[in-house]
């Protein structure tokens, strides 16, 4: 049975914009993306919204729904009160292009800064042997659908444009963790680089990223905290520090 829903949509672009109220039909079982599409097809033909699979698998329809970063395709209208107005706004951490679509190129730049996987040279294709239990740690992070909700919610960059240069964000901390825990990867010092080049030290583990992750990846507990702890172990290990001094003296 269709009923009327009050929807408030942010419309505009980088120069100007604001919230617009619309009334739209909603049917049983529909998600927020369905009603946005209905608005598009019947009232605002040029309403911009990014989406793709509509099944929570591609991570395209990220937006803020009543102020919370979410996937519009996985947010049931029925999860709100019948009389409640649903407000949809673009991701706040990224520049608006138009309406609900933001410029997420920041994330693709950061992706290019993470050194790629390095396969053992002596291991020919088909020769790899790994235990299931060992691949599972990295597989958790490889579930990531790159919706960038964790990037959007992270307060290090959400309201601090100036931090973006030196901070890769939760999405890329799990990418580094995934490579670091990969049973075969041969590149060294990934954790150390996470600290020195990707800004993991700026994270103060408030777990906001974990809370918004639609794939329920334990970003903070399973990736960020273990990496932070290991970095501390490596950088402040007395034995290593002593060895470092010897090495430098030898060099000198």
């Amino acid at each position: 049975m269709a009923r009327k829903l009050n929807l408030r949509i942010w419309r505009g672009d980088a120069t100007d914009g604001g919230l617009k109220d619309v009334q739209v039909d909603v049917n049983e079982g529909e998600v927020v993306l369905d009603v946005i599409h209905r608005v598009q097809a019947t009232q605002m033909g040029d309403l911009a919204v990014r989406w793709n699979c509509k099944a929570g698998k591609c991570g395209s329809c990220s937006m803020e729904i009543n102020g919370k970063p979410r996937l519009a395709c996985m947010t049931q209208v029925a999860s709100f009160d019948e009389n409640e107005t649903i407000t949809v706004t673009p991701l706040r951490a990224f520049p608006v292009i138009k309406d609900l679509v933001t410029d997420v190129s920041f994330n693709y730049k950061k992706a290019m800064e993470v050194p790629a996987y390095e396969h053992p040279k002596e291991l020919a294709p088909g020769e790899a042997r790994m235990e299931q239990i060992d691949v599972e740690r990295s597989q958790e992070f490889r579930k990531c659908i790159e919706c960038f909700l964790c990037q959007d919610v992270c307060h290090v960059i959400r309201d601090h444009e100036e931090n973006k240069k030196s901070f890769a964000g939760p999405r890329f901390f799990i990418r580094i963790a995934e490579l670091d825990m990969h049973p075969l990867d041969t590149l060294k010092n990934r954790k150390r680089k996470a600290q020195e080049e990707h800004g993991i030290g700026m994270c103060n583990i408030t777990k906001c990223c974990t809370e918004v992750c639609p794939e329920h990846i334990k970003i903070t507990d399973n990736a960020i905290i273990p990496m932070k702890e290991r970095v501390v172990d490596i950088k402040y290990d007395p034995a290593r520090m002593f060895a470092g001094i010897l090495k430098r003296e030898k060099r000198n």
Partner: protein
Amino acid sequence: MTLERHKYDVLVIGAGGAGLRAAVEAREAGLSVAIICKSLFGKAHTVMAEGGAAASMGNVNDNDNWMVHFRDTMRGGKFLNHYRMAELHAKEAPDRIWELETWGALFDRTKEGKISQRNFGGHEYPRLAHVGDRTGLELIRTMQQKIVALQQADGREFGDMEAKIKVFAECTITEILKENGKIAGAYGYWRESGDEILFEAPAVVIATGGVGKTFKITSNSWEGTGDGHALALKAGANLVDMEFLQFHPTGMVWPPSVRGILVTESVRGEGGILTNSEGERFMFKYIPDVFKDKYADNEAEADRWYEDQDNNRRPPELLPRDEVARAINAEVKAGRGTEHGGVFLDVSKRIPAEVIKKRLPSMWHQFYELAGVDITKEAMEVGPTCHYVMGGVEVEPDTAAAIGVPGLFAAGEVAGGMHGSNRLGGNSLTDLLVFGRRAGAGAAEYVKGAGANPVSDATIKAAADRIEAPFSRQGGENSYSLHAELQEVTHNLVGIIRTRTEIEEAIAKIADIRARSKNVAVAGGRKFNPGFHLAFDLDNMLLVAESTAKSALLREESRGGHTRDDFPGMNNKWRQVNHISSFDGNQVNVKAQPLPMLPKELFDLFDIHELEKYMTPEEIAKGGSN
């Protein structure tokens, strides 16, 4: 404003599995490559593939090899496949999977630490390499990250990571450009700004995927609008066998907003059974004669198969997709469907809850979050959904070169021939890898011998005028409603079951919608305007639908993804014929063309009694083409 222009050796249109694999190959051959995609990088429909990638590595059952895989593929396609594509695919699939592992992919493992392989419909042995039920995501991410690895290497060599490979995301190609009868580049617009963009390149690889959005109930995302099929037709290439569409037997049927979304075949591979509203496990009634010796005709044997595959026949739930889809359709039509017009698919009574959550994690989430159903406790409601198009660009198997257009290549779902009349699950992911690589190599080889072929100003102007047209029209038609109308026509008249009168009606209606689409006007400006984007997608879908309907009218038999109510059986004479669509600028024309015959060495891989089910006595007597 000045036009944005780029020059590359190879343009890859589409950034799904096939496009990315082609790009890697072309770059590794030393060429510069532009990857163009309608979505953001890494969002392509490949991410939706759940079950796995079929490759006869023999990790779980060492009886498996390329010949068994080849036979399964040909059987699944009812012998309408281009034998050479099926052969190359079966032979090369294992190497393509192992190669992904050297790029960082992490597949699930066997106890010995090898890549694990699972059972799937139509495959004789456990053959699908997989990562839970998100194998497509693993493939796309691995190749996305391989592209980044290549860019990082270019960064070290040239000081610019984008010196030799650049991704043009959220960019739509509206036309493939030719000069002097050969490929010269492509023209399109940025979805974000609406600004136009010209690519000059001697070779173009089309890897745009499928056509699902032509239909009302589909598992495809908005991108599946047949762009590559239409671009190729307009550039002078042919489409082969467009009557064959795969309706995946198990799509969600409720709630309405998720109708069509896929329920992976792995649910059945892991032991899920199909029942009707009377509680009957109905698939035993629908085993066709050609499969009687491979599928169990009773529950006891079917259930034993999960434990002992050497001494029992397979459960009929694992028949090829076309058979299962038709069976579900028949049950629902006979009044034995569920409340929402599907049938039940149940794993809850057969597999412990924790195993379901481990082996089918995204299915559990999908049903729990979108339908409020806990699949560890209750049955799912499922029904057929338009999933895959077997038809596509007619290509030269070894190089993936489009026949008739020098410099044009096609790979993945947009290419035709590989799967015949019906694709086996799991063969798509390896198809992308095998033929994506071959298309990249084919394009690289072609570019080496191709001279400069600059795009003329007249060609540019014509392409630009076409983009401007919908903005200069007044009033007229709305692209959203025309799209909805087209989906009704295809769904009702050229869907899973077809008859002559309905197909004829569809052809007339599609022509009418196409005529009205010339009056589509677009509201608003050029900047990220979905109404404007849909106007172009609609044009592509109309050509695809016309090609499908006209091919379906000609084929007077039922085979694989083409079922004629008025010609219910398979006819061996029709197996010798492909349908070739071409475009004359006004309409799609379809003609019959003989299918290449198997050479003796492949012919001899089959039991002669099996071939007798598919071939005429004259063909059998010949024993192969050589």
